[in-house]
């Protein structure tokens, strides 16, 4: 029993290494703070471009969404991180991670918004357009607010996914939570920092998970 506590829940190790973990947490948060809004904005643009119902544009959107949804985000990240310098594009580490994960997640956000926009009855469009609102005004004031509300659970669930996927950045030595926890583990020959990192992820994600199930229940009750 003592061995287990000493190995996995070693407070001395934790006391020594928590600055690493905090640094890692901060980097993870920075990644999320940039990637989630970028992904949402890009996804919304993708969905709006699709709803113009202009064939070539819709086609491009479908290619974009399908491509990045079927491309494993880790492969995409490695490709951008190690591949781009080969062709002379020098991109900072942080930007490489943001770019890869934004491309990936915007395709998911895009699909969610598209479904949301299509869930709004035609009458809403007609009422708005008949009062002289333009296409983008109708989108902005009438359609998107309702669509976003309808797909709020899916948006939340995808946001959860984004936060988890930032741990992929450890592969390219980005000093985020998982990466620094592993560094701490290496320095101390003790897995406690990993346990701590897992606990931090849990504390970060659990409120969102709760929120998600609350929303899902409310959506079902609202039917």
């Amino acid at each position: 029993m003592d061995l287990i506590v000493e190995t996995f829940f070693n407070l001395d190790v934790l006391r020594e290494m928590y600055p690493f973990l905090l640094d890692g947490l901060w980097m993870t948060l920075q990644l999320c703070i940039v990637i989630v809004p970028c992904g949402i904005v890009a996804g919304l643009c993708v969905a709006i471009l699709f709803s113009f119902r202009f064939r070539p544009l819709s086609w491009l959107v479908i290619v974009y969404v399908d491509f990045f949804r079927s491309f494993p985000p880790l492969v995409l990240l490695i490709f951008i991180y190690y591949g781009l310098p080969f062709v002379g594009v020098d991109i900072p580490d942080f930007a490489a991670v943001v770019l890869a994960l934004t491309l990936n997640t915007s395709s998911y956000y895009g699909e969610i918004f598209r479904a949301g926009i299509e869930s709004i009855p035609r009458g809403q469009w007609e009422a708005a357009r008949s009062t002289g609102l333009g296409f983008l005004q109708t989108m902005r004031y009438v359609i998107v607010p309702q669509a976003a509300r309808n797909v709020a659970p899916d948006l939340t669930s995808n946001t959860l996914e984004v936060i988890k996927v930032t741990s992929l950045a450890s592969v390219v030595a980005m000093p985020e939570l998982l990466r620094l926890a592993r560094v701490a583990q290496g320095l101390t020959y003790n897995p406690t920092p990993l346990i701590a990192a897992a606990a931090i992820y849990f504390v970060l994600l659990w409120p969102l998970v709760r929120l998600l199930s609350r929303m899902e229940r409310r959506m079902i009750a609202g039917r």
Partner: protein
Amino acid sequence: MDKKSPILDVQGLRKSFGGLEVLKGIDLAVHPQELVFIIGPSGSGKSTLLRCCNRLEEATSGSIWVDGVDVLSRSTDINRLRQRIGMVFQSFNLYPHMTALGNVTLALRKVLKLKRDEADRRGRAALDDVGLRDKVDAYPYQLSGGQQQRVAIARALALEPKIMLFDEPTSALDPELVGGVLNVMRAMRKSGMTMVVVSHEMRFAREAADRVIFMDQGEIVEEGRPAEIFGNAKHQRTRTFLQNVLAG
């Protein structure tokens, strides 16, 4: 402009959906302050006719002029024109995420670009006109169907349109709520609004319409004063339709 020139002037209007021709050459002139009633069986093209007038539906051929503006011309600013054509739908189509006042003021603020307090003032006045002064802050789900439809009317009225188009404004309402909406329409008529109404409210047509138009299979079969159409229709098709409708 000549006082007698029509507000709405439709000539030779044709509309096809794919191979199906649903309007087969409609001629219709609506003059200032006129209330024109359109009746006809389901699928006869009544909604399509109204929807072509503000280009919710693209006409296949013909011409449509509203208040001296060529609706079908490519150079017409359709969003500007639509401010002058109020439209009321069978299903109300209120924005569910906005209050009654929000519904009424959206276009005032974003299309007419009025300042918020000016838009609110006009929005409140419009809601007052339809008897919903005390419902400005209510959301659509908090309102009865009749109240929702009156908000929808206020939303169109607030833009001070030259003409109002009603597509079965009372068909989705419980019978006891119809009267409130018709009263609003009566008041609009009294204040001189030009109106085109598609509806099955024959009693209202008899009492309020200047002219009744009977459409069938994409054509205007006949038109006349309500007494003529209801009492003394020339065409068998009209008489059959009226018998069916009046028989319930």
